[in-house]
């Protein structure tokens, strides 16, 4: 695929991920819903799987994680900006590791059992990995410091919380595979670039305006 097209796609999907983490994630965290599991299962896995299916390119999801993590820095409600950004980037890196050996044509995911299983494994490992990264990074960047026993005693809880993310991933990946019929390379440039640019810019503008609005209110 054309490198410019791939770059535009990475920025688009990364911006959508960052937008969902910053805007939707913030509101979800204020509800009694399992926000972290929903964010990983639906948005992180959904968008990373969709981009891998559409663009058939390794490394793209790590790039998405870097863009989404950067966009996450514009959240005035965040208490440890760099920690959340690194956790999102870690999810992108974990996805790349899990999917590294997966052939790009994704023929192995043709069977429902395989796609559901892959969704479960990917979502669970990304959630648990991202959560552990946050639990390490936040104390490291604080005045209190990091204590390994604080993390170890909480590991069963993290593993338990991942169950919901796993189940969501088991539904989201087979749903994302419906995009296999879409041939992104055949989309005409005069349509592709304006659409990807407009959506990406809209994500960034909304997140930045939201940050300014919240800072003014507070």
């Amino acid at each position, binding site marked *: 695929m054309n490198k410019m097209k791939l770059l535009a796609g990475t920025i688009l999907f990364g911006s959508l991920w960052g937008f969902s983490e910053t805007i939707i994630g913030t509101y979800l965290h204020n509800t009694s819903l399992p926000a972290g599991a929903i964010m990983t299962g639906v948005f992180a896995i959904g968008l990373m799987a969709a981009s891998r299916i559409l663009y058939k390119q390794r490394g793209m999801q790590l790039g998405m994680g870097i863009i989404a993590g950067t966009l996450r820095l514009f959240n*005035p409600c965040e208490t440890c900006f760099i920690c959340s950004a690194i956790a999102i980037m870690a999810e992108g890196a974990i996805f790349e590791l899990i999917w590294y050996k997966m052939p790009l044509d994704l023929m192995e995911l043709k069977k429902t059992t395989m796609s559901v*299983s892959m969704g479960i494994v990917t979502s*669970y*490992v990304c959630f648990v990995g991202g959560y552990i990264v946050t639990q390490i990074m936040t104390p490291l960047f604080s005045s209190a410091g990091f204590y390994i026993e604080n993390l170890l005693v909480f590991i069963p*809880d993290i593993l*338990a919380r991942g169950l919901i993310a796993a189940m969501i991933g088991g539904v989201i990946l087979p749903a994302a595979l419906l995009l296999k019929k879409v041939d992104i390379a055949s989309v005409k440039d005069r349509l592709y670039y304006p659409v990807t640019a407009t959506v990406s810019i809209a994500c960034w503008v909304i997140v930045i305006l939201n940050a300014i609005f919240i800072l003014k209110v507070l």
Partner: protein
Amino acid sequence: MGKEKLIPIFAMVVLLIGIFSSVYVYATQVNTDTIKIANEAYTIEQIFSITKSRTVSTPDKVNFSGAALDDLIIKTGIDCLSCHKYKIVGSDNYEKTVTWENMQHGILTKDGTVAFSDLAKAFRVKNVVKIEVVD
């Protein structure tokens, strides 16, 4: 063994880990009406009757009011306050270790939540059951 068998097995293992961890977390949850501070048990009412109150604004712009954690520790008679670290433990085993300086910016609310004005949301411990003094 091919991927077609291996990945579903991994998925099963992952689900079993999640289920057993959920059972473990539920079984080990501590439900108590008292908070143990340096091996002495106190009720929330006792704590509020002996300590000064404080309102803090956390870094995520949430206001909390409750008993001042530093005053609470002083009232329990611990020596050399800044020589120790303080481990705040929740009923779900979530725990965070903080310094004496952090305790001076912390509060315990009536519903048993500990929050700090100088520490991130990750340091907010709900349903606190124990405050340990560690070296």
